[in-house]
């Protein structure tokens, strides 16, 4: 029997993929025993409005949203196994880390941080893989 794939229905304003107005991505997809979360940028999950700010503030908003998305999908931050963080500037890494550590106080997941050019003026993108 093949593993099940499911786009997780979320109680948030998901990108409208049909009309072409949002990014053509699902926020959370389940594949087998894992949840795959799209690269998140700082935004209000209800309105979809961007919340651009400092690296620390964007990181905080993203991780608040990530927690909400994982909880809604029946998972949680402590079930995250791998995180990829993309930063516009690696000089900001300590500022990201300070906020990040508060969300993963105990046995944090495996993680990679990379400096890259990011879309739409954002300073931080965070994606993760978690246990479903």
């Amino acid at each position, binding site marked *: 029997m093949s593993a099940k794939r499911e786009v997780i229905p979320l109680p948030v304003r998901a990108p409208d993929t*049909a009309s072409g107005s949002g990014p053509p991505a699902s926020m959370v997809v389940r594949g*087998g025993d894992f949840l795959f979360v799209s*690269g998140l940028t700082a935004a209000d999950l209800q309105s979809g409005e961007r919340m651009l700010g400092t690296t620390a503030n964007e990181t905080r908003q993203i991780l608040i949203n990530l927690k909400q998305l994982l909880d809604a999908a029946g998972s949680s931050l402590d079930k995250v196994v791998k995180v990829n963080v993309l930063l516009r500037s690696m000089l900001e890494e300590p500022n990201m880390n300070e906020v990040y550590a508060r969300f993963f106080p105990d046995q944090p997941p495996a993680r990679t941080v*990379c400096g890259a050019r990011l879309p739409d003026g954002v300073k931080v993108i965070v994606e993760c893989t978690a246990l479903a």
Partner: protein
Amino acid sequence: MTEKLQRSVIEPENPLLNASRNSNLPHVPGIRIGDYIFLSGMVPVDPQTGERSHGPIAEQVRVTLSNMRHMLESAGSSLERVVRVHVVLADISHMAEMDRVYREFFPVDPPARTAWSMQLRFGNGCEIECVALAG
């Protein structure tokens, strides 16, 4: 009780699209492990010639995703079974154009995705990798 997972190499039916072998690179096109398929980053290669295909970005994204479909179907999977995609562009200003083409390949219930820009090799305009479910 955990069964030992089976690990096998995935190769495209079209040998011209076996970029890693044709360029003598130290990786394979993809690996199947248990229920999952992990594909290497794919770049625009003309499936008729095996040569790099460096047209406009829309065309580069189209040929890359079309080759990705071929790769997955060669392994008995499909684009509909993709759960995660990474899209890397050489030029961040190509994001909207990439999205436009990308949407054609994932019209409903698209996979989770992260897209950004970094330096790419050989003048490629895009590199795309994915994780999919087998079968």
